[in-house]
């Protein structure tokens, strides 16, 4: 949160607003399942964040022989790296989340016995 004391001394431009209620939306029948979905997407973002950092560390070590936090943060990827990392990122999203699109029209109830001939 913002530092209220410092904010009080500042030039302000914001005013009152009408809060939305999307935080209370339930699309999956149970708010905790909705929460889990949010967690799963957030975890994907965290994993990608670490993976991208690792790519930069690997690159710096192989080209400069050393690495510092500043070097990592300041690193500007080449156009080739940008394209390669974007492809890797998009492939990861597809690989991890594609199960969401699986056909559930034939879903079986938990208690249903399987029938054999």
């Amino acid at each position, binding site marked *: *949160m*913002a*530092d209220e004391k*410092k*904010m009080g001394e*500042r*030039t*302000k*431009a*914001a*005013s*009152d*607003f*009408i*809060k*939305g209620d*999307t*935080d209370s*939306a339930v*699309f*999956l*029948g149970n708010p905790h399942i*909705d929460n889990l*979905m*949010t967690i799963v*997407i*957030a975890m*994907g*973002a*965290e994993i*990608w*964040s670490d993976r*991208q*950092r690792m790519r*930069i560390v690997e690159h710096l070590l192989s080209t400069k022989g050393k690495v510092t936090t*500043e070097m*990592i*943060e*300041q*690193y*500007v990827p080449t156009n080739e790296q940008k394209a390669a990392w*974007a492809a890797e*990122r*998009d492939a*990861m*999203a*597809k690989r991890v*989340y*594609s199960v*969401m*699109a699986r*056909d*559930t*029209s034939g*879903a079986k109830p938990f208690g249903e016995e399987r029938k054999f001939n």
Partner: protein
Amino acid sequence: MMDRRTLVGVGAALTTAVSSFFGGRKAEAKAKDMAYPKGTMQPRGHVERLERFANLSLESRQDFLMSFRTWANGDLGRTANARADEILKSKGIPKDNQLSQAEAIELLKDDPIIAMSTRGWCSAQQLMWSGLKEEFEGNADRYLSEMEAADKMGPGKLELNANLKLPDYVKHEIHIQPGGYVGSEFAGHMYHYGTNAFYTGRNFNDELHVGSANNMPIPKDGKVMRILDVGCGIGQLALALKERFPNAEVWGIDVGGPMVRYAHLRSVERGLDVNFSQRLGEDTQFPDNYFDIVTSYIMFHEVSPEGTAAQVKEAMRIVRPGGIYYPLDFKLNGAPRRTAYGMYRGWMDHRWNNEVWTQKFRTNGLPDMIRKAGFDLNEKEPELLRGFGILNATKPA
């Protein structure tokens, strides 16, 4: 392009130099120390025109959320759309049957894939905003210092109006942006970075705004001395218009003080002489017949019907005879008929993306309002943005 940390030093030095000839450099150093305590990371440069996020972790997380959004709108969206078709078929409803929106929602809302698609979109949107809010509000000192420094600088001017009485319709958290356009000091920052996800990578150079500016029609007499962008947000179209018409006096007005403040920051960064002011589109305060071109960029679908009528009337007052009025927005006439899934998504956008006024925008008859206000309306050309509505109005000479 100037980086924002430099602005802090320059702004402080300029202020102090007025009272003390030798005080400028000291003030510059002091202001920088306050805004960026020792150990603060150096600026990370720009991606095209957009300043990079303050740290790699935030940049990567936002990048991933954009990727997820693209996948969810693509593969998952297509699967959800196909599911909607299957559901209609299973109920014996022809695909071209014009269901009501309520019927479409009732039919589709409980399907697991469609619900998962909705949840995925919503979660990504919420995570994107919460990450931005945490960054900008959590580092308020830095970002406020940058804006305060730019407030005092030109070439264009900034007018904030703390006493402006805002109509309620502008106070909503449109797109579920925290605080909306008026309620957070960092509304402009959040909007700029947040819409990057919406534009999926076509926002680093204001691409759509530049394209719109370049396609903007001009009055028949060729005279373009003054231009106004109403509801200018963070000033992307206004700045693009200034680039196309460098000799024109260009204004951007918006009800959101934080939005015009950020717009001004961007104009200072880029050295463009555009004036930004916190004003109402219904009451612009400009003289009659003042502008050669009045425009707006995808604004009216976020305006109430009453606000829309009042703004069109005001546009008629301030456009000069022979001048152009072009409010760019979603297509109204000639838009394809919406499928059941399209109506479901429309509701999702209205209700859960908090696009409070979009549904009414589709039925409030904006083209007729423009004609009734006295403009000659051309709905055939030119198209500013592919797939968007054409409302090229001229005030009779």
